[in-house]
């Protein structure tokens, strides 16, 4: 993803990072290939569900994106934000910033693919019920997080306020998970992350494809967050150099 002219950017050896990216991000490319492979596996080699037909295959994008975006992205962002408030380490702020942005991408995929599954099965694209509305609210919190970061110039103030919003976003995730148990919702109960994990509702072929998709989306998430974090590190290093001039 990066140009090859990266390594000779700053002549000051004290600020040169040993991990500065100097070429293609092969990890990200491998993750993209994994996701493409997972989609091919789902579309061509995974049986379709009897009652829902092909629309059920949206499950293999919608649910992995939701699990990754909420449980592997927003909750770690909240934990890292809390650690920042304690340790005041700017690397933690950069990690939280990267996780929040990638989380927003995954939540956007969840919100955009869900309606195309809901229309043929529920008869409507959208319903203002607890699960859908709370997920939409989470996306607004994440958008607000990004907008707020762009609006505040002072780094410490920006990091502190971002950490507070990040913790608030993390507190939403358990609520979103429990909405289907607490309220009468159109959204179905979880079929994978159930209290009794050993009793699965999926057939073995579907479960295998789902786990493959989940692994691929997790890899994509890690690759995106890693790439985003490296970019933020380079950006801040350059900012320090420009401020010194």
């Amino acid at each position: 993803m990066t140009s090859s002219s990266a390594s000779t950017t700053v002549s000051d050896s004290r600020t040169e990072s040993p991990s500065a990216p100097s070429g293609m991000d092969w990890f990200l490319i491998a993750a993209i290939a994994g996701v493409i492979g997972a989609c091919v596996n789902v579309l061509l080699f995974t049986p379709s569900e009897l009652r829902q037909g092909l629309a059920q295959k949206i499950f293999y994008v919608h649910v992995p994106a939701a699990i990754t975006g909420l449980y592997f992205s927003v909750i770690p962002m909240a934990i890292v934000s809390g650690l920042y408030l304690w340790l005041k380490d700017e690397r933690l702020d950069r990690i939280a910033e990267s996780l929040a942005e990638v989380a927003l991408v995954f939540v956007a995929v969840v919100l955009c693919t869900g309606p195309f599954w809901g229309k043929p099965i529920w008869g409507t694209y959208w319903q203002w019920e607890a699960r859908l509305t709370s997920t939409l609210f989470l996306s607004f919190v994440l958008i607000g997080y990004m907008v707020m970061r762009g609006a505040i110039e002072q780094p410490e103030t920006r990091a502190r306020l971002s950490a507070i919003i990040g913790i608030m976003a993390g507190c939403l995730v358990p609520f979103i998970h429990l909405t289907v148990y607490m309220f009468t919702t159109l959204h179905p109960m979880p079929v994978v992350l159930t209290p009794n994990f050993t009793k699965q509702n999926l057939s073995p072929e579907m479960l295998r494809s789902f786990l493959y998709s989940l692994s691929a989306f997790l890899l994509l998430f890690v690759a995106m967050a890693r790439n985003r974090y490296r970019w933020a590190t380079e950006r801040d290093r350059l900012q320090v150099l420009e401020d010194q001039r």
Partner: protein
Amino acid sequence: MRIELVTFHERQDSAKAQVVDSTSATTGQAEPEFRTPQNAGYMHIAYIVAAVIYGSYLLILRRRWSSLRQRQNSAAPSRR
């Protein structure tokens, strides 16, 4: 005589193949109890939308790196 009415996708899961009498299939008097809905359009749109979102973000990341490289290149000569 019995024949199997299966679609391409159903064929991959033989346990779910629909089986009807050939007589009913030709006369249309007795329809199968349930037919799997063919709603591929929604699936295709959802996958395309997901690809567009992920692809757009990857392009944003790529453009950010390019912009950062330009800033770094313009900053480097001035320090020498």
